[in-house]
């Protein structure tokens, strides 16, 4: 187990390094000259050179890379040229909002999908199962930005029930959370259903039956635990989709989270903020998956007790 934990942590560190490096390379590929963007078209060659020197753009790439990595470690991604504050400060303001949104979405998705998946599995191939599976298939195909727009149209513009923007009240969280949770609900429902069906064919379920246990007791002791362990990993990976989905959802609802910050920064080519956003989102994702992997290992004795 200890070896497994150490390996996972090393891997997470490696992935973070890889992510940072990829971001560094991609951002350096930008055709536009950041100095030119900041100084504007009217700047003289001298002003540009001075700015380049100040931003470290005239140094050799390797040196830039080194100070960039140093910045990643200390959380210093330079200043936003549009708002003249450290990029990290903007990210730090936006991050809690997104975290709240993501947390509510995952919680909501679990609460909704769990009973749906269990019911579908218990009544497999019956009408209720067909409704649940078809429903989740449709929900999975919904473009999240579009469903956001449609919900906005129905609840905010037409019915005027819910506010559309800002983080002014708890109500304003309802629509973005719903949009974010929908694909996750569909995915988890399908996974819980198929996981339970698969586990149902295992030998130990028959053993439990031969021990005289009733089906509900078997479902809630023997089946669920075995079916859920692999699903935990998927939930971790789904966080990636969720954080990605936040980029779109926050834009639709003008929700002041890290996704909206990212998109608006891309539009104004504020690359220090873009870098900070991407790396922070990736780091959050890596961290969550690390925790999920450890939880997985803890729950499955075959991994926990492996030498």
């Amino acid at each position, binding site marked *: 187990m200890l*070896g*497994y934990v*150490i*390996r996972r942590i*090393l891997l997470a560190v490696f992935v973070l390094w890889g992510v940072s490096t990829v971001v560094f390379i991609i951002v350096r590929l930008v055709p536009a000259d950041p100095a030119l963007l900041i100084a504007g078209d009217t700047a003289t060659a001298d002003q540009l050179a001075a700015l380049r020197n100040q931003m470290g753009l005239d140094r050799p790439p390797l040196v830039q890379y080194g100070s960039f990595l140093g910045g990643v470690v200390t959380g210093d991604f330079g200043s936003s040229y549009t708002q003249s504050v450290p990029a990290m400060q903007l990210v730090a303001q936006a991050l809690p909002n997104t975290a709240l949104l993501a947390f509510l979405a995952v919680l909501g998705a679990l609460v909704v999908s769990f009973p749906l998946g269990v019911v579908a599995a218990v009544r497999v191939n019956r009408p209720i199962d067909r409704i649940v599976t078809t429903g989740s298939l449709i929900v999975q195909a919904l473009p999240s930005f579009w469903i956001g727009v449609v919900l906005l149209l129905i609840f905010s513009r037409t019915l005027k029930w819910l506010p559309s923007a800002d983080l002014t009240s708890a109500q304003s969280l309802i629509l973005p959370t719903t949009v974010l949770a929908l694909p996750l609900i569909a995915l988890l429902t399908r996974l819980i259903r198929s996981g339970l069906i698969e586990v149902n064919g295992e030998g130990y379920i028959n053993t439990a039956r031969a021990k005289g246990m009733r089906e509900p007791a078997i479902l809630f002791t023997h089946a669920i635990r075995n079916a859920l362990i692999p699903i935990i990993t998927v939930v971790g990976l789904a966080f990636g989709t969720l954080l990605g989905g936040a980029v779109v959802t926050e834009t639709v609802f003008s929700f002041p989270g890290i996704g909206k910050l990212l998109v608006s920064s891309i539009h104004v080519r504020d690359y220090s903020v873009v870098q900070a956003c991407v790396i922070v989102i990736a780091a959050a994702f890596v961290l969550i998956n690390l925790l999920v992997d450890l939880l997985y290992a803890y729950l499955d004795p075959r991994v926990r007790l*492996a*030498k």
Partner: protein
Amino acid sequence: MTEVSLLKVQNLRVSYPIHSSILQRRIGENMAVKDVNFTISAGQTVGLVGESGSGKSTVARTIIGLEKADGGRIEFEGRDITQSTRTELKALRRDMQMVFQDPFASLNPRLSVQEIIVEPWLAHPDVVPKNRRASEAKALMDRVGLNPDYASRFPHQFSGGQRQRIGIARALALQPKLIICDEAVSALDVSVQAQVLNLLDDLKQEFNLAYLFISHDLSVIEHICDRVLVLNGGVVVEEGTPRELFENPQDDYTKRLFAAVPVIRPWLNGASSKPAGTIPRY
């Protein structure tokens, strides 16, 4: 045993590496085969028996080239094949073939029976010229007791015993001198197993084949082998003719192994005079 041996295995050692859990570095090894020596002469059947983990399948897989030996020599007709290059090995494959355990997994489900039997000739095109391959494949099917009219059927349309016959036909396609049977009849029902054992016996006479026969089933080994090696923990603990081993085992492990073999009619041979329904002998 004065004739030149077909296969000679000397001090064979095979291990699987153990990797550290952190950086996946190789930190040790698990010895599957520690020290195995034996020879097979042309036309002879040698049996390897042992329980799971004894290393018997590893020996077979190393000889055929599916695993790498860590030490020792494997000589085929006097040539050391552990040091062979790829092209030399390819030539050797013609003389040495294998019949696998699982008749459901050992045939490519996407190929027809004829394609399966012809496949060896794609690797060794000189064995049978292209225009005669279809008819030769059918002749082989006929030889192993399959209806040649079924040449275009797929493996899933056959029963376990029939599939094992297809596997035998594929092994025969290259006219080998040695066939390694790795638990080749273990997955078959008794009545079908007997058919396949008889087929293997007939083919041996007809083509002067030698067999290396790997099995956990001592009665099968006793039936088909000229010599038997008992493997335990990667080492040969005893060797002899089946009669010697069954009637007078010397090694402790061999004694235990043979004593545990179920007897069909325990009430007949006096070893057990207990009435049925009580504690079985050990």
